[in-house]
């Protein structure tokens, strides 16, 4: 371990170096960055450290307790896996952005005050947008812009929330805050900020818009940090907030239907991610020690198994250039190692006993029952079966089995296989030795996952759910993969935005042009024409000055109103 080094610093230096270096040196720096960060994290003392003064604010860059340490550790592990997975890429922009992005996530979870948290939150937004844009494909330009709009909205909401909170006398120090009360001023804005990044219903569309569009390597980074930072923030500030139980329940429920009919397998995984975050949000909303432990450990596991699944689909994309179920199939002969690694991820997310999802998900469900949420428990059990259907069966089946697509394929580069193997090994390790992860959880709770009853009932659920899928496929009831666009909530702003654009371009723009033409050109010319015949001013001149003048006036008015 390294003592006295702020763990984010290596990421900043590493990102700068990666932008100027190339070839082998760049690979070495990229690999060393998260490793040095990890060593620095292990050397951090418990409690606050690295206090600095910044524009009159006393910032606490690092505040280590069990919750922040666990997420920071997770982000370093994800960073190491991600860097190895992306070791072959040549894009400086993507490598540097990815390192800064991982560093921002670490900075956010280590933050000891709300201002530092906000700065990390904004860096997270900016750096990740460049990862989206780094894919050499024109289609990602609008996707990245839409992505950034959501991230900026989240940042603005957080800023508004913490300003109002501070104005009304609230402390900015995380150690003073404890659990935030939704009834106190500014706090709803803070929750909204976290909710946008966590993919709350209706704010979830950026996830399913962006993650299928970024590069094979980019999505692996994107999927690890943003939503999990939001889960950390929710677990830190909103445990036991009753509203989250309902929000989380909705999140576990609706994506599983979209996942059945979605053709793009990375989009299926994106819906699956919302479903998994739903489980975490439910756990945080229940708020008991066991529930929060379950939520936090599920976040940890999800980064690993969802990362593994995204990596396996990324490998398929890298080799074949395709991710649609209709284009894929039968790849297991050509990509046997990738297939096996994907199946490990599929078993982990489906909560098969001895794989990592089993314990964490059942902690949340047990907590739901203990707190009297019986109906919720039935819903979560249904959602669990749904996860098996889309992530456990559909993903590996349509990519590697099903009908042979006769695509040319081979195993991906060695670095991709190594990264996937590390992810798979961790999924199995945590699944078989849950104590390793569970001793690091925020609360000490005794929970015995491997009882005969629990293992048996889980196997019953999963095996019969699988049988159901087989029967539905054999009878032709299972909906076939189709090359279609499935509308989601984003239709309202993606189509609605065009209507707005039309309104701005047509009635408003044309109307103002006509008015300004009359007021500035026609009327003066006619008035002056009565006195003296002078030629009318060229209209374009005024039209260009007018909006600027109006803007200036508005700015002046705004400044005056605020100053006095």
């Amino acid at each position, binding site marked *: 371990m390294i003592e006295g080094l702020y763990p984010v610093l290596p990421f900043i230096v590493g990102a700068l170096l990666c932008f100027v270096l190339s070839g082998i040196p760049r690979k070495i720096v990229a690999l060393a960055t998260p490793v040095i960060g990890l060593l620095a994290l292990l050397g951090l003392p418990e409690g606050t450290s690295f206090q600095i003064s910044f524009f009159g604010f006393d910032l606490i860059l690092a505040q280590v307790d069990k919750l922040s340490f666990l997420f920071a550790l997770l982000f370093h592990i994800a960073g190491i896996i991600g860097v190895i997975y992306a070791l072959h890429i040549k894009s400086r922009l993507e490598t540097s952005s990815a390192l800064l992005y991982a560093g921002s996530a670490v900075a956010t979870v280590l933050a000891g005050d709300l201002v530092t948290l906000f700065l990390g939150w904004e860096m997270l937004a900016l750096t990740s947008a460049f990862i989206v844009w780094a894919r050499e494909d024109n289609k990602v330009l609008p996707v990245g812009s839409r992505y950034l709009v959501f991230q900026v909205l989240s940042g603005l909401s957080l800023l508004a929330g913490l300003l109002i909170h501070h104005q009304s006398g609230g402390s900015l120090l995380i150690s003073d805050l404890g659990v935030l009360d939704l009834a106190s001023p500014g706090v709803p804005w803070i929750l909204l900020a976290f909710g946008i990044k966590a993919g709350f219903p209706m704010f979830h569309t950026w996830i399913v818009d962006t993650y299928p569009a970024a590069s094979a390597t980019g999505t692996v980074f994107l999927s690890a940090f943003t939503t999990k930072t939001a889960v950390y923030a929710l677990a830190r500030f909103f445990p036991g907030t009753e509203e989250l139980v309902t929000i989380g329940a909705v999140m576990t429920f609706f994506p599983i*239907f979209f996942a059945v009919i979605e053709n793009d397998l990375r989009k299926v995984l994106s819906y699956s991610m919302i479903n998994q975050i739903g489980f975490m949000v439910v756990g945080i909303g229940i708020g008991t020690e066991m529930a929060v432990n379950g939520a936090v450990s599920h976040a940890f596991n999800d980064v690993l198994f969802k990362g593994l699944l995204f990596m396996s689909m990324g490998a398929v994309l890298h080799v074949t250039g395709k991710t649609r179920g209709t284009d894929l199939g039968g790849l*297991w002969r050509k990509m046997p190692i990738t297939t096996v690694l994907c199946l490990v991820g599929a078993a982990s997310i489906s909560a098969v006993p001895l794989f990592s999802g089993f314990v964490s998900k059942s902690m949340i469900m047990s907590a739901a029952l203990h707190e009297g949420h019986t109906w919720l428990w039935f819903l979560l059990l*249904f959602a669990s079966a749904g996860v098996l259907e889309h992530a456990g069966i559909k993903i590996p089946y349509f990519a590697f089995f099903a009908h042979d697509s006769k695509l040319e394929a081979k195993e991906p580069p060695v670095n991709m296989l190594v990264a996937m193997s590390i992810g798979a090994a961790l999924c199995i390790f945590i699944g078989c030795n849950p104590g390793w992860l569970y001793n690091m959880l925020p609360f000490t709770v005794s929970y015995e996952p491997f009882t005969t009853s629990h293992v048996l*009932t889980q*196997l019953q*659920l999963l*095996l*019969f759910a699988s049988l159901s899928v087989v029967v539905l496929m054999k009878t032709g009831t299972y909906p076939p993969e189709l090359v279609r666009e499935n509308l989601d909530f984003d239709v309202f702003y993606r189509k609605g935005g065009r209507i707005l654009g039309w309104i701005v371009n047509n009635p408003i723009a044309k109307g103002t042009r006509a008015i300004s033409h009359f007021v500035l050109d026609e009327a003066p010319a006619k008035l002056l024409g009565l006195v003296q015949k002078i030629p009318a001013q060229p209209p374009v001149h005024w039209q260009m000055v007018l909006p600027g003048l109006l803007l200036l006036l508005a700015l002046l008015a705004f400044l005056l109103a605020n100053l006095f």
Partner: protein
Amino acid sequence: MSQDSHEAHASPSKIHWVLVAACAVVFAADFFYHRHLEPAIEKIEGIPGFYPIYGFVGIALLVLLSRGLRAVVSREDGYYDD
């Protein structure tokens, strides 16, 4: 689909029979092993075959409802392209 999958799998029917056998074993276990029941849902959870039935029917419902969802939200590819 089953026609094609014969090419892809070494022997898909064998895998299916393994699945059916595994299902039979875990279903039968309910009649021989006295499961620990959660007090809150004792009456429902205690029914032999509760979890198998829930898993099987749950997935069937999920898939049927998803077909309905597809009927509502499915549009031609490139719907958002100009």
